[in-house]
């Protein structure tokens, strides 16, 4: 792990369990935040989002599974490790389908939880890196002129310079100039590279990352 310490949020209404998890997560040099309920978690002021949430399935107020769905709807993809006193299969299937890192039944072995948390943190890191790339791309894309954007869009769907010039009713030379300009702004080294970047952008456009 590089840079600042990862933050793990523990949401469990049992004080004993919270304290035990706190102790355990501390042993692997993680910053731990403890919450009694989902409301408690949402109400907390924070400078940085947690990298992983350790979430009890059964909670007062909205349950852990409800919270997972709520986050997903809000396009928040913080990795979740579920812990439960008496998990059943439908419950765990639902959680895993919705993207949970792990579904652990209490009492679990310490390593199981630590591994799950670690993989959650890694996933969060990767996602964050990805988001940085996308944000950069968006920034670059935003710097394109209207004409450049149109040309990039047509390139991405496989049109040749000639076809684009015809379609946009401009000369092929002008098309080539705009294309070079756009590729430079986007940081694409080749046409294939540009297409990949545009795909990534298009994908990210469907969801707005907020974390």
């Amino acid at each position: 792990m590089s840079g600042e310490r990862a933050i793990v949020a523990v949401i469990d209404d049992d004080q004993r369990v919270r304290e035990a998890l706190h102790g355990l997560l501390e042993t692997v040099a993680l910053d731990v935040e403890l919450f009694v309920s989902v409301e408690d978690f949402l109400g907390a002021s924070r400078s940085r989002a947690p990298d992983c949430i350790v979430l009890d399935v059964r909670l007062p107020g909205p349950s852990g599974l409800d919270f997972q769905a709520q986050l997903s709807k809000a396009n928040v993809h913080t990795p979740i490790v579920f812990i439960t006193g008496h998990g059943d299969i439908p419950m765990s299937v639902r959680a895993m389908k919705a993207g949970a890192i792990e579904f652990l039944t209490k009492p679990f072995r310490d390593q199981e939880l630590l591994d799950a948390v670690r993989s959650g943190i890694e996933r969060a890191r990767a996602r964050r890196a990805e988001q940085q790339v996308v944000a950069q791309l968006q920034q670059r894309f935003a710097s394109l002129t209207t004409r450049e954007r149109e040309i990039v869009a047509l390139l991405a769907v496989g049109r040749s310079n000639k076809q684009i010039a015809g379609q946009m009713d401009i000369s092929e030379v002008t098309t080539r100039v705009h294309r070079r300009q756009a590729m430079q702004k986007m940081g694409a080294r080749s046409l294939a590279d540009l297409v990949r970047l545009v795909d990534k952008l298009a994908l990210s456009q469907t969801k707005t990352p907020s974390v």
Partner: protein
Amino acid sequence: MSRSQKRSATQANRSAGGRSQAKRSPDRRGAQDQARGTAPAQSRRPFRLAQSELGERIRAFDWASTDTGPISDWSNGLRTAVTICADMASAQQAEFAVTLEVHARRAAELSEQNEALRREVAEHKAAAEAMQLQLEVLNNMPAVAWTITPDGRCDFINRYYLETTGMTADHCLAPTEQWKTAPDDLPPFFSGLHPDHRERAAKIFWGGIRSGTGWSFEVPFMHADGSYYWHFEQAVPLRDSQGKIFRFMGTCACIEDLKVAQGVVQDREKRLQEAREELARVTRLTAMGQLSASIAHEINQPLMAIVTNSDTCQHWLASTDPDLGKARAAAQRMARDARFASDIIARIHSLMNKTVSERALVDINALIRDVLDLTQGELRKHEVVADVELTALMPMILGDRVQLQQVILNLILNSIEAMIVVQDRPRALRVKSELNGADEIQVSLHDAGTGLDPSSADRIFDAFFTTKPSGMGMGLSICRSIVEAHGGRICALPGVPYGAIFQFSLPTRQ
């Protein structure tokens, strides 16, 4: 005056009369007196004795008339004799008249006495007959009767007793020296008394004799058939005109049927009580069964914490740079959580196994918290938020901890069930304890459930009354019987703005 005393007085009168007449023939007096003295036994008939006395006196007179001496001059002598005779005759007449009068008076007296004696005899006869009747009654009445002397010896026992016990009169009436070797030995007519009850009976018996108050006790006594039957024995002192006790008289009646009936009733009550307790236990188990999943969760939580803390502790100890402070903290958490888990188990154990009612001082607030701990999982499962408002420093109550826990448990489970269908408002359960006046505490549970159906509100505490598809209808009925057994009351009220309030009050310890 007794009969014999009367008799001797009559005799004395008679002797006095005889003496006054004998003055005229003093020589005979001694003989007469002597004759009477030697034969008092034959003088039972006073009238006949008077006749013979009279005859004796006439003979004495004849003797006196011939004792006047010789007559020499015939005419003179005759005259003299006539004179003498006349004198004698008049003297004789006079004396005879006196005698006759005395005898007539005497005869009248004697006749009167005779009449009195006859009446006396008749009275005696009637008395004897009455006594015989009484004796017959005493002997044959269908109950035991006896008399006991102030020193504890039986001197009369009726035939009924002898027949029912198969004892003999000789045995029962044996003189004291034959049976009494210690101060508290019972007289032989008690020999059929059940050995297990002898000591107690002897204490009461001699206590009643010595204090002079009499006694009563219930004992099993052996009948002639060799079986023991319960008897009620009772004795009262008999006092003479000076107030001195001269006997104790008593009876003894067989109360076996009564005892059997009592036993049957007691036995039935005991079985009813047992059945009630068993029913309470079963419903407790049912409630616990309902809770089992959440209780398992409740126990699993601290177990999970213990395991995790143990891992943490080991990690810090195994580290190249061991953090003993953190290892110790983890170990302390382990101990704390283990105690918590074992407390839960102990609480469940007492709720599951307890059957016999025990009264002790109970802190109602602690009791409410205990039950809330047990139902925490269930509340959470149904998303019920408990709002607990316990008045501090509540007086202790005298009660059965487990039974009272059961009341609160039943009411909480009821409230949860009433709120399951509620979707449009928070599922809140307000549990409150408060003082109600100086000598009553009150616990109320206000739920946000569907409320009470007014048409059945007055029946909800009845046994087997239920509005739930799977309910037995025992929960609230048991709550009521427990609360009432503690001298309290329970009721259900409509909640404002919704839900129901179940409220019970218990008297504080006086």
